[in-house]
């Protein structure tokens, strides 16, 4: 045996995002609307708590599932905000980012050969995660005509009725789509009817600008078949601290913890202290950031309308998903825009075939840069289209 990668690793191509990153890094006048993380710094109170914990020498492992106090705070938060009632001792696990929680769930619940339906366009980690776990991903394309919401029609067309599990993520990366309760209800019915396990990535839940975020786990008969993922990266601007969590019934968390205790031991301790403080005292910071994102969202949507690039009204996360003009592929458009005008965006097909013909434009960037970037896109359209 040499260091030949295993087949399931070879089966996964490198991320399509990487190439754009490399081009963008070559130039120094680039305004990037390609960033998938907040431009805000972690609220000071949370950073201060992390520093304080270090000063106190709190640098040992914590309980596998995370500090009890933090699990209690998470339990209090999710029930208040999203009506999700989970027991801090048995039904919550703290992980190294929502990323780890997603990976744990795939490894804990997907058997070799299981089919995992994935609502797309989607965050890029689900397909590889399913493959690494030995499962078979089944893309479920959503359509702009449905505002990129998941519908029963889309599930049926993709053959998801025969799948074992379903992954969904709303508010969505990359489209910014949200799923109001009325649209989630038939999806819950479908999952129950076809006995699907549901993996619901709700990491952007706080970044919902119209209406309230609803979790699919709150529907009748869904709690027992759903794992909810959330984390601190987006709402609390804590990406680099790597902290997330999963909510699920006791037996499911026990299974995930089995994988976690051998693979990770415990989530980063310093980050757990920061997260505890974030839940304790940073509501105002979150509100301020959400307010800023919402203004930028409206600004960007208005500008796309003014310059004649059709863009459905994204209501969550920090992305909009405009269409590229006729005659262009998203890839060409994004590449030329980067070379010509120094504006980086991500072609939509990176997030699944149903993203074809679209661009993911992130507004996790200050208004000054957004204004300039949109003017450059306008100039590009005038020159080149």
């Amino acid at each position, binding site marked *: 045996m040499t260091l030949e990668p295993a087949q399931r690793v070879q089966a996964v191509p490198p991320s399509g*995002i990487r190439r754009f990153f490399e081009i963008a890094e070559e130039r120094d006048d680039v305004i990037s609307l*390609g960033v998938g993380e907040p431009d805000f710094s972690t609220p000071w109170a949370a950073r201060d708590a992390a520093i304080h914990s270090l000063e106190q020498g709190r640098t040992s492992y914590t309980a596998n599932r995370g500090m009890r106090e933090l699990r209690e705070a998470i339990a209090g938060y999710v029930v208040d905000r999203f009506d999700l009632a989970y027991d801090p001792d048995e039904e919550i696990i703290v992980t190294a980012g929502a990323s780890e929680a997603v990976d744990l769930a795939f490894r804990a619940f997907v058997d070799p050969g299981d089919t995992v339906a994935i609502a797309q366009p989607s965050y890029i980690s689900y397909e590889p995660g399913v493959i690494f776990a030995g499962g078979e991903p089944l893309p479920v394309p959503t359509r702009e005509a449905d505002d990129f919401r998941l519908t029963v029609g889309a599930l049926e067309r993709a053959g998801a009725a025969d799948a074992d599990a379903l992954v969904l993520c709303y508010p969505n990366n990359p489209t910014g789509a949200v799923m109001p309760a009325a649209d989630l209800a038939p999806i819950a019915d479908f999952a129950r009817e076809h006995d699907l396990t549901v993996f619901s990535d709700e990491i952007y839940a706080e970044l919902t600008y119209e209406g309230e975020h609803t979790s699919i786990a709150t529907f009748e008969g869904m709690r027992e078949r759903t794992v909810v993922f959330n984390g601190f990266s987006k709402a609390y601007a804590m990406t680099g601290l790597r902290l997330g969590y999963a909510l699920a019934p006791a037996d499911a968390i026990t299974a995930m913890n089995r994988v976690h205790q051998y693979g990770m031991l415990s989530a980063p301790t310093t980050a757990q202290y920061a997260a505890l403080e974030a839940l304790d005292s940073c509501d105002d910071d979150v509100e301020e950031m959400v307010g800023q994102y919402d*203004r930028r969202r409206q600004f960007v949507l*208005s500008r796309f309308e003014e310059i004649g690039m059709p863009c459905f009204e994204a209501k969550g996360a920090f992305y909009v998903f405009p269409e590229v003009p006729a005659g262009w592929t998203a890839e060409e458009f994004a590449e030329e825009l980067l070379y010509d005008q120094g504006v980086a965006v991500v072609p939509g097909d990176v997030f699944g075939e149903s993203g074809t013909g679209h661009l993911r434009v992130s507004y996790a960037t200050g208004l000054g840069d957004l204004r300039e970037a949109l003017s450059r896109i306008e100039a590009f359209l005038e020159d080149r289209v």
Partner: protein
Amino acid sequence: MSEREVLELLRENARYSTADIARMTDLEESEVEATIEELEAAGVLRGYQAVVDWDALEDERVRAEVELNVTLDRETSYGDIAERLARFPQVTSLRLVSGDYDFDMEVEGDSIREVSQFISEKVAPVPEITQTVTHYVMTSYKENGIELGDGDDDDRLSVSP
């Protein structure tokens, strides 16, 4: 509450154009303009000023925070004293505060000499003023909610999932 929204945005950046404010809110540009006019007419919006880091400029500006204690009599109120002091162009802000002293006054001038002279010749002699304590500003770290340091660099990867 379009007024609140417009005020918040102007407080964030008074140079936002009315068109940009309209884009960021549900308002039409004409509504933004009308709201701003109303707020100005009602005396809610009193001015639009730049936030300057004087330390970043060659020519120094001298600023001082002055604590003032006063005694009142039947004929003189806090308002009367304040009105008198506020007229001086050297006074950039003046507030009645709770605690050990009465007024919190900020003054600005071109030199320490000028500011000191102003305090000793114009402020201290006011009959109701019993005490002044002057603190010269040495370095300013935050003004009007804006941090004056180098700021946090954006060290995010330029493209990420």
